[in-house]
């Protein structure tokens, strides 16, 4: 009887071997990006890229070239902020260039939804930083690179509707670490206070028109 049981398990295994349209295999280059997005990425980022938990950034409507750059940087370990290496080094380690491009296209074409109400921070102060910067702290206005609607442009990510907590943590990463090299953000953030960060992140999460 034991052999019958083992044979049944083996048979089940064979049945389950090839399931490319519902695979969660991250090392199989034949799995379509749309399948990986649904079966794996959606667990944290949401099927439509509008993540619920602020641990995970919203990807809906994100700039494709920005997503590609981040996934490549995770894969090469150039991006080493804690949230990045704890979660994304493993996810990205065996993705092919084509899969990365496909994932970027998938999330780029999703529609960004309205985020939850902001819990703290001054929206007015945040709007001022976004639109005018903080000249005395050598901080350029966010909208200069990220667009008047915070929609991003190419390598500059979309910020509108992004989680406040995620943005604050990333601003600290830029300011205090070398975890995200190759961007002008270290210079831009180096004199910002935590209060500045909380305010501008609050404004971005609640971005008007979202």
């Amino acid at each position, binding site marked *: 009887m*034991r052999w019958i049981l083992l044979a049944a398990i083996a048979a089940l295994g064979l049945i389950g071997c090839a399931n490319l349209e519902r695979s969660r295999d991250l090392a199989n280059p034949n799995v379509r990006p749309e399948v990986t997005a649904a079966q794996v990425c959606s667990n944290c980022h949401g099927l439509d890229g509008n993540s619920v938990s602020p641990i995970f950034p919203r990807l809906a409507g994100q700039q494709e070239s920005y997503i590609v750059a981040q996934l490549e940087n995770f894969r090469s370990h150039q991006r080493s902020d804690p949230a990045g290496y704890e979660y994304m080094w493993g996810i990205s380690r065996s993705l092919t260039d084509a899969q990365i491009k496909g994932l970027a296209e998938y999330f780029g074409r999703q529609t960004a939804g309205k985020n939850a109400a902001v819990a703290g921070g001054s929206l007015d102060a945040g709007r001022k930083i976004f639109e005018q910067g903080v000249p005395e702290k050598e901080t350029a206005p966010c909208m200069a690179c990220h667009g008047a609607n915070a929609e991003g442009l190419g390598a500059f990510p979309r910020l509108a509707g992004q989680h406040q907590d995620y943005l604050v943590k990333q601003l600290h990463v830029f300011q205090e670490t070398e975890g995200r090299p190759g961007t002008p953000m270290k210079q831009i953030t180096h004199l910002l206070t935590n209060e500045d960060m909380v305010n501008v992140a609050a404004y971005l999460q609640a971005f008007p028109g979202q």
Partner: protein
Amino acid sequence: MRKLIVLGWRRLSSNWAAIVPGLAIVAGLLPIDASALPLFARQTGQNCLSCHAGGQFPELTAYGRKFKLTGYTMGERATIPLAVMGVASASKVASTAGSTDVGADFPHDGQFEFTTASLLCCGKITDNIGSFIQWTWDRFDHQNDAGKWVSKSHIDQVDLRYADRSIAPTHDLIFGASLNNNPGVADVWNTHNSAFTPVPTYVPVGNPAGNAGGPFVDVPAAPTDQSLGQHSAGLTGYLFWNDFLYAEVGGYRSTEKPFTVLGDTRVSGFDSFQRLKGINPYWRLALNHDWGANSAMIGIHGMSAETYLDSADTGSPTAKFRDIGIDGQYQYILDPHVLTAMFSYTHEKQSYNDALWNLSNANFTGTFANSSNTLDYLRAKVTYIYQAKYGVSLAHTSIRGSADAVLYGNPTAVPDSRLWAPEIFWTPVQNVRVGLQYFMWDKYLGAKSNYDGNGRNAKDNNTLFVYVWAAY
């Protein structure tokens, strides 16, 4: 009624001397690099805290629950799907009062020793099939006739899954089946199952009472659905719909052929009321909601079981156990803070074959004084972890039962006990944990003082427990 007296008592034989070299060989085969971490971490390439709340075990994050529900199939299949874990610990009882042979009643009291090790074979097998299979070696499994402690190794937790997921903008349906050896092991909230809880708290490490092995400090009683680990083989089907509704239903039977591989000993070696008669239904229903950094679950669970008085004799009289319970969890996870609060309450109705309690029955066994009994079992725990490194927890267990002078031999004739267990722990790296826990018995076997009629008090059973847990 030993089944109700002792949890997790293991009997299967195997020499530990054969196990340790085996574990060493396995450890030597594993790649030594940045990804040389416990098995699921190697498969996903992710940090333990991705799936485990604050990196602690066994509480799962929302993401970890999805990983388990989808059959441990996410990531890359490991070249060598093996991992090892071990626990070194010491327990020190507050008082040995009432003992005439302290060395026998409280063996290893206060001694820090390597106590248990496990070999795990886990992870992705195919796109739809994955496993969690644990084989455990207990250094102090039992004492032989000469009073010498004997080590044993045995099958521990088994969860072999088939899972699939249909997800689209209109729906998200995860569904699958689990072949396992412990009711509730397939559950992803770990609120009410005993799979990883040899003590009535949610601690993933050895039982101080079990380590001591003596009759003085142990869990007085537990519901049947939490006492069948490694003595039952179950097949359950489950679904998780739109991150909202979880349902699981299945049946459990004894680990007889062809399921002997799932049992930690032959059925003839089971204790009383550990051998199931026929197929015994188990079910679970839960509602889940995630919002922001929060996640909450409220659920109900139940099992109906019938077991034999004499596990070696299927002609012996049986007892029926009907468990129904409610459980819940709240989680807040946002770096650097992780908070998990959980509870589980189970009410059990026990009813017995006439021969077990009725004096006038020709086959009277004298096992119970009553024709039926009840048992209420509450567990709760709150854990806070900072930076996935520093943690505190407070666990509570409360047991109440109807009086039965034969079932419970103590003067009060009830199993009523209350336990509080505060704990502090430190996780210096994600696969090592050091902890200190204090088990405080507020009531034991129905009394605060003189619970045994020989002057022993509940607080005499208080136990300090220190442990070092590591996995590789």
